[in-house]
């Protein structure tokens, strides 16, 4: 199985552990990732400014993958949402497609709409499958309660992103459950992490982040689990900044899904970058047991 890895702008610059853990997990599961250096920003941060720039940015990436006959795998949910959105609009409107292709043509690219767009989680669930993951697992968690954070841009708008049921999603919960951890119910599970407003309205962003984490904690979670650089940075670095500013201790440590899964696949914690999280998560290893020693 092969994908063009769409790494996006945040991960290599600020969240190396996401890249290294995702690469390790996927390679363990037999997925080959192809890097396309020419990929550019997906266009997400530019949507506030100019629709056309957003569309061109996403379309160029899709055309680049198309040229190599590859499907795209993103690690970021905002990249996923943007690529999906652009793909949807371009398929729907011939005039938009024509406009974009006119520009892409200059570099010998063309958007035709072939490549499929996957997120890490949907690829794990649908393309690789839980059985394959189970097969490769060497350890399981016991007595570990995890709050899954779905992230807005993979769930909504559902007719565009086509990821999971927008009201009662279960894909992420199953992926957590397969590791032996308990995916808890919490009322704010589908709420936004607050990241889109960080840097624009920090007070509001912080309110939303802390409110959500508080809800997770009160619902009994040991960790919140993410699969998006914005959500992760928000729950990790920004939570740390926010709680020190608001005189509190942090509420809930956040772990990236490939870190959680990677440990149960027996991947070295250095590769998973456990130490690189701002709010420590290495305690999670205590909940890990070799398969076969379950009580």
């Amino acid at each position, binding site marked *: 199985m092969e994908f063009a890895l769409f790494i996006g*702008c945040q991960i290599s610059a600020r969240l190396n552990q996401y890249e290294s853990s995702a690469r390790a997990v996927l390679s363990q599961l037999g997925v080959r990732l192809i890097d396309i250096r020419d990929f550019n920003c997906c266009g997400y*941060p530019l949507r506030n400014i100019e629709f056309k720039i957003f569309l061109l940015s996403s379309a160029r990436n899709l055309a680049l993958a198309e040229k190599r006959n590859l499907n795209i795998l993103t690690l970021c949910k905002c990249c996923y949402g943007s690529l999906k959105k652009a793909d949807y609009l371009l398929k729907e409107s011939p005039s938009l497609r024509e406009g974009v292709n006119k520009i892409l043509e200059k570099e010998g690219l063309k958007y035709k709409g072939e490549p499929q767009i996957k997120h890490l989680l949907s690829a794990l669930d649908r393309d690789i499958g839980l059985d394959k993951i189970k097969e490769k697992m060497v350890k399981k968690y016991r007595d570990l309660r995890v709050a899954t954070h779905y992230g*807005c841009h993979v769930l909504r708008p559902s007719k565009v992103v086509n990821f999971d049921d927008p009201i009662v999603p279960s894909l992420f919960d199953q992926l957590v459950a397969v590791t032996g951890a308990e995916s808890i119910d919490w009322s704010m599970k589908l709420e936004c992490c607050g*990241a889109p407003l960080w840097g624009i309205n920090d007070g509001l962003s912080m309110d*939303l982040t802390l409110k959500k984490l508080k809800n997770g904690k009160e619902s009994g979670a040991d960790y919140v689990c993410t699969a998006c650089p914005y959500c992760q940075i928000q729950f990790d670095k920004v939570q740390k900044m926010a709680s020190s500013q608001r005189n509190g201790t942090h509420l809930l440590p956040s772990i990236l899904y490939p870190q959680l899964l990677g440990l149960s696949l027996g991947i070295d914690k250095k590769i998973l970058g456990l130490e690189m999280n701002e709010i420590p998560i290495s305690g999670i290893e205590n909940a890990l047991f070799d398969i076969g020693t379950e009580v």
Partner: protein
Amino acid sequence: MFFKFSLFLSLIIFIIGLIYKISNWFRYKIGIGSVEISGSRRFFYALQGIFATLFSLRIINLLKSFVLDVLLQYRILREDFLRWVMHILIYGGFMLLLLMHALDKLITAKLFDSYYPTLNPFLFLRDFFGILVIIGIIIALYRRFILKPPRLKTNAMDLYAVIIVAVIMLSGIFLEATKMVAYSDYKRMVEEYSGLSDPNELKALEAYWVKEFGTVSPNLKEPFDERLLAQGEEFHQSSCAGCHTKYQSAFAGYGTAKLIHPIGIRIDQARIPHLLWYLHVLACLVGLAYLPFSKMFHLFSSAMNLLVNSIADKEKLREANQMTRRALELDACTHCGTCSLRCSVAQTYEEIQNIYILPSEKISAIRSLASGKSLKGEELRKIQEGVYLCTNCLRCTVVCPVGIDLQDLWFNVREMLLQKGYPEFLILSPLSYYRGLMRGEILIKDYQNALLQAREAILAQCELMREKEKTIALTPPDKKFQSGLGLSTQAKNFSVCFGCQTCTTVCPVVANYENPQEVLGLLPHQIMHAAGLGLRDLAFGSNMLWDCLTCYQCQEQCPQGVAVTDVLYELKNLAIQYVKEKRS
């Protein structure tokens, strides 16, 4: 006399230029925390840092970087093999020529007792090095004008650099070739060194040189009698061979000499070798004098920057040294365009015609800024937009072949420009995420001001927001606005909103406030109404628009299928466009 005078003149200009340029490293202030530190103090701190390095283990890093980055240019190799070949040919060939040929009296003659420029291996090597440089230049021209890597811009400085090197190399080879064929040069040498006076003996030697060295004689033509040649060889062996290897080793010059052989006499009569000598020497001296002010200064500044980069721990560097380093970085840029090739948002240049979006082009603008040149408001705005339109993905910094911390430059210049007070609307986009993460580095007042400025500038164009009691007609006041909303087909359906308020009810931003209207202005369903009624001011002026998370809860749950979030997105686009037009 001419030579000495011009050599000293160009050396003096070179040294003054060098001092001036280096002094800039301690004068230019780039940095948000750029507190008033005097240049001499910065110089002192830099020296302190250098000494501390020289007497520490970091010297190993320094040496490693000198070999790998400076000499072997590993960072260019990593990026692009062809470019590495090109650069190593030009730089390697040029440096070797400089050391062996230009500075022969100072270096080569001291190292090798038997040194004479017309003897092998020096005769061969001079041409060999020259040809390396010329191949390099051909690759450079091929890349720039035929291969055309995306977004590689050619400015006057780039052209100058190629031209000066090409002129030096070509004039050198032609000088060599014309001297080979020139009869007067031959005669002068014979008079000085052979001691022959018998016309028959002179004829024999001349015949030998015409045959073996390609001298073009006005008196003798091939073929020659074997005995005459044998006699000529004898004289050659006794008088000339000590300093003259056969010219074939100087293959470039010899080949050229063969080409110009038919017009050899006229070349000599027109004193072309003499003119070429002036051209060659002048080109070298002009190159030397202009070096500190040209792209070629990167010989020093880029090497210096790579070395500093290898030892400087940014976190630990004191602010004074960081300012100095940034100024050095501006000089270290060679305008190679690698950053613009790899830039994550360079594609936006297709839609926004602002050259400063491209990182390689920002540098020259920042250099002007740092030098204190007063730039026009319009220009400043473009630079500000250029530095803000950046996802801070770090790719430019990672690929920069001379190790410039571009990310750090952008961050600092961005803040310095924002403090000048011109509102930047890009700040109201997720491009600000990085700025938020870096807020600890910025004075809280400056941090908030830049955000407020942008919102206030938008509000200032929305009159209705200030006249809350005003009664307006029921018919849409701005039909054009109302119908011009549909940038994309999806966002056209706001008018089917029947006011059920589901969007507002599920909005987590609205839910965050006890009295949301006070903070947010119009709420989502009201914005949909405002759009439907063509009330532009109310739609644009509400904080709700900029405080939207884009979490799509509203859109997902709208019973009428209104694309609420997408409408909000596109209203933001329109608002920025509108306000920009109004302000200009």
